[in-house]
């Protein structure tokens, strides 16, 4: 049962929001703002997050349109001041887009065997037979102990975007205290167990700021 809900919630995290948040996003937020949020979240998260393909498509389109506009304007000898402002706006968006993609590439590169062939041919084949595996330290290793994985049970700091009511921590102290994740002032430490529980909430949380700090790793002594 427990693992079941965890999975459902996991799902909820990865599926794009479909409710009020979506509407809010549509009406009150520009794509640049959404991209900025995606960029911040990507930077703050230990794992690689779901690729925001729709958003990236839209932003790329807008960038292309704007590039055309700027070109037309400069061909028309438009006012150089407004032209430079258009260019700045374009550069800022390009920076965000590149930085977002770059963070993702860094994460992928960290955990990939892309250079496998090159490594096998030029390095591993020169090593003693027992050490030729790319995945294992040596033949003695029982599992793939050279494959890096993102550290998923790490801690992230979050800023809640809306009021969240008290959250009961499973491994909390005996008095079952409720922690006020109140106002906009959330500071959360996400423990892997807690994070499962909170992941649905996470879609509403901007991974940026910490305010209430909750530590649930330690059964109190």
């Amino acid at each position: 049962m427990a693992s079941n809900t965890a999975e459902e919630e996991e799902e909820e995290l990865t599926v794009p929001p479909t409710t009020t948040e979506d509407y809010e996003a549509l009406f009150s937020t520009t794509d640049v703002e959404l991209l900025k949020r995606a960029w911040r979240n990507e930077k703050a998260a230990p794992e690689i997050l779901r690729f925001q393909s729709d958003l990236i498509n839209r932003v790329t389109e807008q960038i292309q349109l704007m590039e055309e506009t700027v070109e037309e304007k400069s061909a028309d000898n438009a006012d150089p001041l407004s032209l430079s402002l258009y260019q700045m706006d374009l550069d800022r968006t390009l920076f965000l887009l590149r930085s977002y993609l770059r963070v993702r590439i860094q994460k992928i590169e960290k955990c990939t065997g892309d250079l496998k062939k090159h490594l096998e041919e030029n390095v591993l084949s020169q090593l003693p037979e027992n050490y030729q595996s790319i995945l294992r330290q040596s033949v003695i290793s029982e599992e793939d102990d050279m494959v890096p994985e993102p550290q998923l049970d790490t801690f992230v700091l979050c800023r809640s975007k809306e009021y969240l009511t008290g959250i009961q921590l499973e491994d909390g102290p005996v008095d079952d205290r409720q922690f006020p994740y109140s106002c906009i002032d959330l500071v959360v430490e996400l423990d892997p167990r807690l994070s499962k529980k909170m992941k649905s909430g996470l879609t509403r949380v901007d991974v940026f700021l910490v305010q209430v700090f909750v530590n649930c790793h330690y059964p109190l002594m």
Partner: protein
Amino acid sequence: MAGQSDPELSLFSVEELEFIAEDEMVDIVPNLKMGPLNLISGDFGPFTPQIVTKVPMWLAVALKKRGKCSICPPQWMSVEKLTHVLEAERDSQEMSEQLPFHYVEISRLLFEHARDNIPDVYMVRSLIEDIKDVRFHKVETDLEAFNGRTIAVKIKNLSAMEVNIVRPFIGRALQAFYKHDSPELIPDPEKVSDTRPQVVNNAPREWVFMHLVFAFAEATTKIIMN
């Protein structure tokens, strides 16, 4: 790449934080006539001399650099208001909520590009420096309360810069606590009698914590010096 942060030190570089803050809105008084700008980040203008209009900080700074506008400093950036804030910050261990999330970056941008638009700029600047110091001292004190037995440390109203500085520290401290506190790593004295004698006490944890506090203090000094 320049401006990219070193994730070990802080999640966002100073430049990246400033980039984020540059989207905050500010009032300007243009001295030129220019039609509306339909940018990717939004529509701004039209610009008419002497008519106040709201634009993002980066746009304000760009116009200001070319001598095309003056920037109206935000309301909190007055000697009177900041004196209040400083008093409030000194009077209580709680962080005051009167300053915006990006107050450090916004004031830095304005000091750099719009000094002549800020009344009593020297006084304002020194007040903000003092507020920054007082606040940071409080954050440090709050974090000292943080050890392996801590359930919750509540620090409200942190600013972007402050969060950015404490984030790597908190993350690593927690990981260290977690590691030294994991049941798999610490033998259970009841079950395990054939392994080493009980080492279950708080010493290693406290030690790690102290160590991190020192590292943290050094890092923040460096950052504040910048």
